[in-house]
């Protein structure tokens, strides 16, 4: 198993240590021979570093959020932070219990995404042939949202006037219906992946930050993959760097094991 380097002397406070665990992963499109360098940092505390990570296929990735409610995955375009975020759902989607939670590390609680969680994916999952309202009503019905959730989501994301508009007519605003879809049902955990378009390159993203804050305040967890610093003060940040030439051999560890 990869090991975190110990924090530099006097640079950290163990009380705030956030552990993370990387499993061999089967992320879609992931180059099997690539190696990653991962840096897990908390400003002003310490920066343990996990380097030369070489995930293999047919496994999975896991992130322990520790005592926090949100984790931001950052890195340059193409490094794979979106796949890393989305990869966390794979094994659970194949049948693990939705409410699975386990004790990990020093009594900190960790959980995996399950069927009750919401993936606010890198892509919209919005059909242009259907209206915004139809799209959201479908997801609400499929995900078991409560009555009125669609109307609330439309209002929260400024889409009430576009209820009957086709998804194709919302060019440049495709993220809004996607977020509304993610918000139309209460879920224990939400995974968000910001698109790499012009809107997503802005540092400030009030709707996303607001949705995340509300979600976490309601007791949810959030995992966000993005290219830019969103300035979330209470979220941990895991930065992914491009592969390093001549990295170490692949890591072998059994899936599901910390």
């Amino acid at each position, binding site marked *: 198993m990869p090991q975190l380097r110990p924090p530099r002397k006097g640079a950290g406070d163990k009380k705030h240590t956030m552990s993370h665990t990387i499993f061999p992963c089967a992320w879609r499109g992931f180059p099997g021979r690539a190696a990653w360098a991962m840096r897990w940092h908390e400003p002003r505390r310490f920066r343990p570093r996990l380097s030369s990570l070489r995930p293999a296929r047919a496994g999975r990735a896991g992130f322990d959020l520790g005592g926090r409610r949100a984790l931001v995955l950052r890195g340059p375009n193409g490094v794979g932070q979106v796949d890393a975020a989305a990869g966390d759902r794979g094994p659970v989607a194949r049948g693990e219990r939705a409410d699975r939670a386990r004790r990990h590390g020093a009594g900190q609680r960790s959980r995996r995404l399950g*069927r009750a969680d919401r993936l606010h994916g890198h*892509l919209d999952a919005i059909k242009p042939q259907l209206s915004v309202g139809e799209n959201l009503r479908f997801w609400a019905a499929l995900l078991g949202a409560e009555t009125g959730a669609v109307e609330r989501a439309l209002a929260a994301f400024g889409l009430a006037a576009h209820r009957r508009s086709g998804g194709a007519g919302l060019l440049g605003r495709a993220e809004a219906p996607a977020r509304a879809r993610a918000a139309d049902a209460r879920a224990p955990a939400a995974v968000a992946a910001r698109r790499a378009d012009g809107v997503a390159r802005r540092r400030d993203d009030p709707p996303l930050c607001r949705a995340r804050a509300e979600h976490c305040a309601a007791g949810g967890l959030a995992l966000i993959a993005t290219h830019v610093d969103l300035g979330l003060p209470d979220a941990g940040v895991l930065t992914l760097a491009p592969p390093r030439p001549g990295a170490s051999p692949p890591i072998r560890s059994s899936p599901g094991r910390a």
Partner: protein
Amino acid sequence: VSAAIAVLGRELRLALRSGGGAGLGLAFYLIVVLLVPLGVGPETEVLARVAPGTLWIAALLASLLSLDRLFQTDAEDGTLDVLALAPLPLEALVALKALAHWLTTGLPLVAIAPLLAVTLNLPGPAFPWLVASLAAGTPGLSFLGAIGAAVTVGLRRGGLLISILVLPLYIPTLIFGARAVVAAAEGGDPRVQLR
């Protein structure tokens, strides 16, 4: 149940609103069957003899046309990722999508087949069996095709590969379906083929 209804309703709406979706297979079926008399000649005996096979092969190829988009559009826009986390089992989702594919592609073929059978001079007693065999066989084409569509969902231009993967699986359906119609046309007992 409400989730299943939602999936089925959405698939039907998408098929009806997408250009070249449901109508494409029907148009293809019409063209192929109507071209056959031009190719083999106007002799009614010859047309009657080739009619069961022609109608079945055309239905089989028509159902292949839209298979490549069964999962591909969902994969492209991220819908599959979210569906994987939906409370509905993935098996049920695939079955519902295949059912929607049959309702929008196979069922119109079943409905129009008797009309086209007239142009091929299919004997009268074979008409009910043509409809029955297509009604029994075309759902199988959609469900078998879903296997090929799922295998090639990550490939660009996977339509040809779907044909190579799925057409061998279609052979038993084609044989039993066409032979049942042939038996009915020749005055035999078609139930032997459908059992």
